[in-house]
């Protein structure tokens, strides 16, 4: 049996996202999705046997991943890990606040959206962890990593804390470079990067 081309799935996600932006999460139907994505209803149901619920969940995951892919592109040209994380935090926070669809759905239908984001966050965590692990491994090669640090677990720790901070910065003003530098150097990397020759 032929499986639908990968870009057809993308079309459905993009179409669903458009519908959610226009009609909201609860009011978007599979018909709306089919129409907006240019994919037939039959094909949509074949691709997503879990129906509307599956489509919504996966579209949330898709947009969350796109958000972080945009973030990765934004912090490409940086001299070191600390600067990368500092820039990532402040850019991500600003992007989140300026994300029209997210802010609209958070304001009008949080109970529909939040469980989906919580379920999909493990995918995003894997993405961010996968992004960070090689960066930390490079720090090890450069002799900047503490001896006993497990790169995978460290990457997971940073990824979780980044996600937490971006959504709920709490006491931190992520628009203030000095605060962000303090936060990254201490809370995020304090147990990960070594302080050479300072003992």
């Amino acid at each position: 049996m032929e499986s639908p081309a990968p870009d057809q799935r993308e079309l459905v996600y993009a179409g669903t996202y458009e519908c959610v932006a226009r009609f909201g999460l609860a009011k978007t139907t599979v018909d709306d999705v089919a129409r907006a994505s240019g994919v037939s209803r039959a094909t949509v149901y074949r691709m997503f046997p879990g129906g509307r619920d599956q489509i919504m969940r996966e579209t949330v995951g898709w947009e969350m991943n796109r958000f972080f892919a945009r973030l990765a592109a934004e912090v490409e040209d940086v001299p070191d890990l600390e600067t990368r994380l500092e820039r990532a935090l402040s850019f991500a926070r600003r992007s989140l606040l300026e994300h029209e669809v997210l802010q609209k759905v958070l304001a009008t239908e949080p109970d529909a959206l939040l469980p989906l984001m919580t379920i999909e966050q493990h995918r995003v965590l894997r993405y961010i962890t996968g992004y960070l692990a090689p960066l930390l491994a490079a720090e090890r090669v450069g002799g900047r990593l503490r001896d006993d640090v497990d790169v995978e677990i460290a990457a997971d720790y940073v990824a979780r804390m980044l996600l937490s901070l971006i959504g709920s910065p709490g006491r931190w003003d992520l628009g203030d470079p000095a605060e962000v530098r303090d936060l990254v150097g201490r809370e995020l990397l304090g147990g990960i990067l070594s302080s050479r020759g300072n003992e």
Partner: protein
Amino acid sequence: MTAALAVDTLHPDPVETRALDATLACIARHGLSKTTIDDIAREAGCSRATLYRYFGSRQDLVAAAVHAEALRVADLARGVAGAAATLEDAVVGVLRVVGRELGEHAALRFVADVEPEQLLPYLTFAGGDRFLQDAAEAIAPCFTRFVGDDATRAAEWIARIGLALWLSPTAPVSLADAETLRGYVHAFVLPAIEPSHVLKVSNQLSKG
């Protein structure tokens, strides 16, 4: 918020206590959305009128029950931290006791497992900010004797970690597993909150 929410824990009114216990029992049984003021009244052995007189509304009653539980757990945390010999013991102890209390909490478990949409607005985004602030205030006293003025900063970070681990079942450590939790705290959390580390960081920064 009304004055009715300020449950006096030093001189607990037996009616208030019964009402709060009854609220939690009903939620544990049927969940939050299906629990009515009548259910609570029946469970507490009092009238609707009494409940409304004490609490004002179903929402206020639920909020009071949550608040009372939060105070109770914070008290346990402070007790554990007070007995800790080191900052590491205090952090691990606080995370474990809060993890245990919340993990075994029947009402919370029901809502978290069956009606997460009722809970998540209070733990994510702006709700998360408020939760972290309240939690930091509640457990900062646990760490004052170890980190002084940094206690609230440390408390918020620990609350953040606890929340992140609790919300995500795929985390590499669990609040219930003492050994891996201690290793995690030792590796990542302690260096993040120990004040002596501030010196190392400024040295690092000045190396440019």
